[in-house]
């Protein structure tokens, strides 16, 4: 290619450069600066407080709960969504025709706004709802959004509902790469379906599964809408995610400086946690000879 294309390349890349300066570098520096001030989002004056915001944040119930709630969400949401999407993918894979049609159907929940799915679930779980009336018939009476674990479970379930079809789509492309010969050879060898899943399907599916695992773990660090709409982070911080904590502190309590410190802590925790989990998953796959 000709050499005098230098300016052309930069011209085409210029939207990103502009964007990166205004909406990445500038906010990044600003955030670091804010985190060492006591600014309240409105007042024209502020003073420097050093690392006070950080020490206060680390001691606060809000930040500590956000740290643990994220991992609790991971422990509930990831197994749920993985199990659901594997089931959906296995079922769709077993259909000789209309595979695409079913995949499109299962994908539809992904289109729901978090606000809409939360409102529907709130209706379904309201005290006099058909579901609760039905459960009370069996003597089961659960205050879904009022008890810590149930609230966390409900939010995880809503998000799992949303992502199941999307992940199933990724997994089916993994299935398509598994050749029929392997299955037929296994059938001849008299392998049980259970063994067949764990010894053949699972290892061959692992690359697609790895993608889904990484994506779903990433999702748990960004939960906001459903929590905001359904629980507000409660009851008693049981669903208080990082985004919820930062939003509340910055825009409800107007502690912009303090919230910036939390945001920086959240970013560091997120980055390190995802890095470690990723490495562990890679190690796990390698040790079992799946990758």
């Amino acid at each position, binding site marked *: *290619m000709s050499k005098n*294309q*230098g*300016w*052309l*390349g*930069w*011209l*085409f*890349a210029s*939207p*990103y450069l502009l*964007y990166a300066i205004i*909406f*990445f570098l500038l*906010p*990044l520096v600003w*955030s670091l600066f804010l985190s060492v001030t006591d600014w309240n989002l409105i007042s024209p004056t502020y003073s420097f407080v050093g690392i006070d915001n950080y020490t206060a944040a680390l001691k606060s119930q809000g930040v500590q709960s956000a740290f643990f709630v994220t991992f609790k969400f991971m422990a509930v949401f990831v197994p749920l969504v993985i199990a659901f999407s594997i*089931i959906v993918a296995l*079922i*769709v894979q077993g*259909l*000789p025709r209309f595979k*695409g049609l*079913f995949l*499109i*159907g*299962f994908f*539809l*929940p992904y*289109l*729901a*706004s978090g*606000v*809409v799915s939360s*409102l*529907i*679930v709130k*209706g*379904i779980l*309201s005290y006099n709802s*058909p579901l609760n009336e039905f459960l009370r018939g069996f003597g089961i009476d659960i205050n879904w959004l009022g008890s810590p674990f149930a609230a966390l479970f409900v939010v995880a379930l809503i998000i799992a*509902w949303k992502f199941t079809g999307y992940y199933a*789509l990724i997994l089916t*492309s993994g299935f398509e790469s598994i050749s029929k010969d392997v299955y037929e050879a296994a059938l001849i060898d008299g392998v049980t379906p259970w063994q067949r899943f764990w010894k053949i399907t699972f290892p061959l599916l692992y690359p697609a599964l790895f993608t889904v695992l990484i994506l779903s773990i990433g999702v748990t660090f*960004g939960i*906001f*809408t459903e929590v*905001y*709409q359904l629980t507000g982070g409660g009851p008693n911080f049981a669903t208080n995610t*990082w*985004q919820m904590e*930062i939003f509340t502190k*910055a*825009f409800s309590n107007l502690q912009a400086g303090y919230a*910036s410190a939390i*945001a920086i802590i*959240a*970013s560091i925790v997120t*980055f390190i946690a995802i890095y470690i989990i990723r490495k562990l998953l890679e190690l796990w796959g390698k040790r079992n000879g799946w990758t």
Partner: protein
Amino acid sequence: MVGPKKKGLVFRYLFAIVLLLIMIYPYIYMVLNSFADWSQVDKKFFPTEYSLKSWEWLLGGGESVIPRPWINAFFNSFLVSAGSTILMMVSAVMVSYALAKIQFKGRDTVNNVILFQMFFPAIILLIPTFLVIQKVGMYDSYWGMILPKAMSLWAVFMYTNFFKAIPDTFIEAAKLDGASELQIMFKIVLPMSKSITTVIFLFLFMERWTELLWDMLVAKSDNMLTLNVLLSQMFGPYGGYPGPMYAASVLLTLPIIIIFLLFAKKFREGMQFTLK
């Protein structure tokens, strides 16, 4: 031999259909309740008495200070989502084309910075980005909602990988015929990228359409709210009117489902490429 196999197949389809119905039941519940008589909303799995009261409430005044707030919010949502998505698509195509097909000094640096930003936790940027928008006077404006979401690094990443797979010989040949870089982009590269463009467009548009946090921060006046924000505010923790709540949810969900189904076939094709 054929008998039991066929039976198994029927069973499989039945199972798949039942599972699909369970999966989309929340949508069914939403639509039925939006047409249910107000005495039956949230009272039955399948309401038995229906009325148009919820929709009349929604499309009429709907308890607000401005006339027809829901129609107005729908228009806002559409404007913001379309504006954002178009800018994200245009910028992604331009940047990706530069990264994949133009050789220039510093290209690798730009590429690395983009990758770095992609894996950078974005939560840190929320507060200062809000301040940037406030300082330039875009608070409570459409631009304030559109500009911070005018670029998608994910889209850049997807397009770059796709463009790299297009053989250079096509482009060299066009250049010999005297085509400019812009002509090559519009006449050769983009027509080859239809299915991936569909995938990227759908993901970006639906993500923008269902955004809550950012629009909630920027939109202040009653006539600036997007549909998602109005829905969230109107039927928040203490909100009444369960019937209209379902009607409003349908209003928000239906357009995105229609758009998705219109492009569903191309979407499947494109997904197959992106997942390879």
